[in-house]
């Protein structure tokens, strides 16, 4: 009998269905020859929503390949080797290497040949992103464009309004130009109403996901990190759609109900941790292993922020769910207004994207905010060789936490390349860490 009651999430099945439908839609578009747009999912995916299209996002696709590779290595190691055989270095972004490998092998992990997009559209959120789809377009022979992303500095830097305005205008004007460009390369008319709806829904669904994360401040936490991977993915894949808003409303209601009834994600929660960077998708079992000690990872700057809109509240000195247009009392009526709002949303409220560029003092502040407000005992840091965007600043984060007296567990790996992950060594590190913080396996107590 555990310390807390637990039960499965009622909307779990719906999350799986929504996720699979995205890929079914892409496969159908490929087979029927309708429009597919490809790029990073953390790009401005509401932009191409002015067309009827299916969006193929590179990062979740890479994670899917990694997961499929657990049972059949052709989808992970096989695609990596195909990329390396084509002379691409093996220390580059692991998601990118899976995407290139999939394209070169002409294999789609959800069945059939790799879908050729109508065009690629990327947002240059990290040093790899803008170049990633340049390479894909080289191979596919399809048009390519990119929006440059220069985020606002973190709050600790006290960036001036003048500087923020320059960045906002820079991104907004690029967005407007990209819309014209998309019309040019497709020969199709862009629907402003669809775009404005997509911006509203994206802001709303990412606000809702942030609110879901706020529910995890409760003890016991109603979600654990492993569950969150299957839940935040809806916003990653389709946050610009109304179906995502509806899903997160349902999830938020369910989480509130779980909190009210004291339903835990993990029945023996006694030591709350957060994770840093993406997990090793090929070995999520490490989270289950930690539960043997009563330790549960209940969130991450990454999983909170990747799909969530977070605003810094200077008065309370904390991060809160950012207000979408309607809640902020704003009506977006024109393409220009929507681009301006959208640009600001991404530059200010997308905390993960901001951390890819300014990972020092600002990220420490955000991590500390989570530690304080989510009642966190320790931080687990995945020194991630597969994503340098999230790995930047990690050693300084470890030092910062040590200075603050917050325990930190580091382990080395790669989010998508299992060849760079050592499970026995990671288990050893977890054992050592647990001993250090005085936790024994529950079964041995």
């Amino acid at each position: 009998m555990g310390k807390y009651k637990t039960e499965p999430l009622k909307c779990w099945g719906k999350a799986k269905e929504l996720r699979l439908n995205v890929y079914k839609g892409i496969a159908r578009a490929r087979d029927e020859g309708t429009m597919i747009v490809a790029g990073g999912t953390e790009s401005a995916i509401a932009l191409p929503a002015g067309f009827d299209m299916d969006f193929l996002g590179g990062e979740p696709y890479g994670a899917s390949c990694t997961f499929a590779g657990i049972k059949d290595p052709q989808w992970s190691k096989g695609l990596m080797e195909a990329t390396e055989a084509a002379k691409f270095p093996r220390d580059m972004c692991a998601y990118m290497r899976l995407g290139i490998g999939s394209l070169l092998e002409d294999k789609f992990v959800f069945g059939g040949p790799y879908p050729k997009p109508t065009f690629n559209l990327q947002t240059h959120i990290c040093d790899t992103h803008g170049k990633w789809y340049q390479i894909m377009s080289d191979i596919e022979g399809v048009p390519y464009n990119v929006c440059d992303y220069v985020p606002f500095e973190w709050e600790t830097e006290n960036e001036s309004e003048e500087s923020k305005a320059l960045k906002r205008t820079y991104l907004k004007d690029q967005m407007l130009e990209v819309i014209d460009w998309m019309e040019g390369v497709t020969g199709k008319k862009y629907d402003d109403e669809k775009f404005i709806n997509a911006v509203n829904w994206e802001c709303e669904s990412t606000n809702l996901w942030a609110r879901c994360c706020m529910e995890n401040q409760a003890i016991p936490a109603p979600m654990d990190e492993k569950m969150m991977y299957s839940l935040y993915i809806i916003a990653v894949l389709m946050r610009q759609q109304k179906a995502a808003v509806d899903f997160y409303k349902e999830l938020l209601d369910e989480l509130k109900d779980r909190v009210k009834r004291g339903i835990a994600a993990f029945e023996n929660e006694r030591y709350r941790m957060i994770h840093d960077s993406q997990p090793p998708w090929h070995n999520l079992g490490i989270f289950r292993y930690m539960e043997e000690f009563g330790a549960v990872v209940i969130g991450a700057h990454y999983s909170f922020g990747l799909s969530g809109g977070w605003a810094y509240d200077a008065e309370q000195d904390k991060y809160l769910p950012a207000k979408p247009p309607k809640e902020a009392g704003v009506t977006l009526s024109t393409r220009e207004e929507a681009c301006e709002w959208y640009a600001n949303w991404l530059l200010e409220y997308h905390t993960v994207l901001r951390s890819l560029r300014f990972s020092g003092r600002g990220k420490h502040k955000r991590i500390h905010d989570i530690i304080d407000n989510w009642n966190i005992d320790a931080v687990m840091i995945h020194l991630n060789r597969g994503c340098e965007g999230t790995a930047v600043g990690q050693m300084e984060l470890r030092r910062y936490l040590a200075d603050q007296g917050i325990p930190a567990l580091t382990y080395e790996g790669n989010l998508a390349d299992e060849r760079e992950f050592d499970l026995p060594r990671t288990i050893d590190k977890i054992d050592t860490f647990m001993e250090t913080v005085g936790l024994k396996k529950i079964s041995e107590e």
Partner: protein
Amino acid sequence: MIADFEKIYENRHDYMKAWKEKNPDWKVLGYICSYMPEEILYAANVLPIRMFGAHEPQNVTEPHILGMFCPFCRDVLAQGLLGRYDYCDAIGITHTCKHVNQAYESMVTHKGFTHFFVPTPNKMQAKQALPYYSGILGLFKKQIEEWVGREITDDDLKRGIEIVDTNRRLMREVYETRKAEDPPISGRDSMLMVCASEMYDKVEVNKIIEDVLKNELPGRKAKDDPGIRLMILGSENDDVKFVNMVEEVGASLVIDDHCTGSRYFWNTTEPADDLLTSIADRYLKRPPCPIKDMPNRSRIPHLLGLAREWDVAGVIMIQQKFCDPHELDKVALMDAFEEAGFPTLYLELDVTVPLGPFRIRVEAFLETLGSEDLF
């Protein structure tokens, strides 16, 4: 004298300390990436110097930066943490890559430097980049004014532009001489010239280059037999031992594309009504770091043009290990060179270079380039 470039390179810190004593009214700002708008700094009586590594093993960066980050950034950070740049009054970076960002963040955090971050655009080809970057340079100018405690006037800016552009013009002139069948200056010395320009007072270096152009290069042969003409390109490279080795085994490096080479100085500032716009425009139009070359691949025609104009037989592509920007262009560039008839050799640099194995690979490459003579 050409030899002065090496003296500056080898004794960079001594030169700078002596320079500071002679110029007490100036401040010194150390920067890492070559996109730093030096014109504005010269205008403010701030000497910009590029921070380099020392190419020696070190044990200070591991607690701060991951081992999979590029050797250049780790080496530069090591120099900062070891106090070798303590004479700098401030440090600064422009946004180029996260490895540079990390080295900068760690130095700011642990050395307490006054610091400046210039958020350069990445999509240099975007028409929106010019108004954005001009505005950002305006804010940078204001920050520098506040720091030095005085206004930077248009005349100051013109003076700054003139100093930096003169340096660019002179180095371009030196590079032009390398088109000759018998180049008067080696690849090694050319690299040292650019490094000296980056790490010391340009006014002083300009005098040296002017003297070299006038009195030393005419009629000079860098080598009795220049051997096979090669191009070298890739990420930051100030590895003297490696470049020396290549030129000792039967080759001459006659042209390059490095940020410690032609990429740093290739174009000058074009006049415009607004001086900051003019400066911004120059940085947007310079031969780009690969990370800033999107969505179109402007580097390929530029690099093929250099290879043809300087009449090279092959290309050595080197990069700092783990340098993502250059890795991301690797395949496209190799394919473009090979298609255009320029064989390539690809090597990865670390803080220290395994000269023996590299010598074998370079010799094998040169042998393949010379194989037509055998048959």
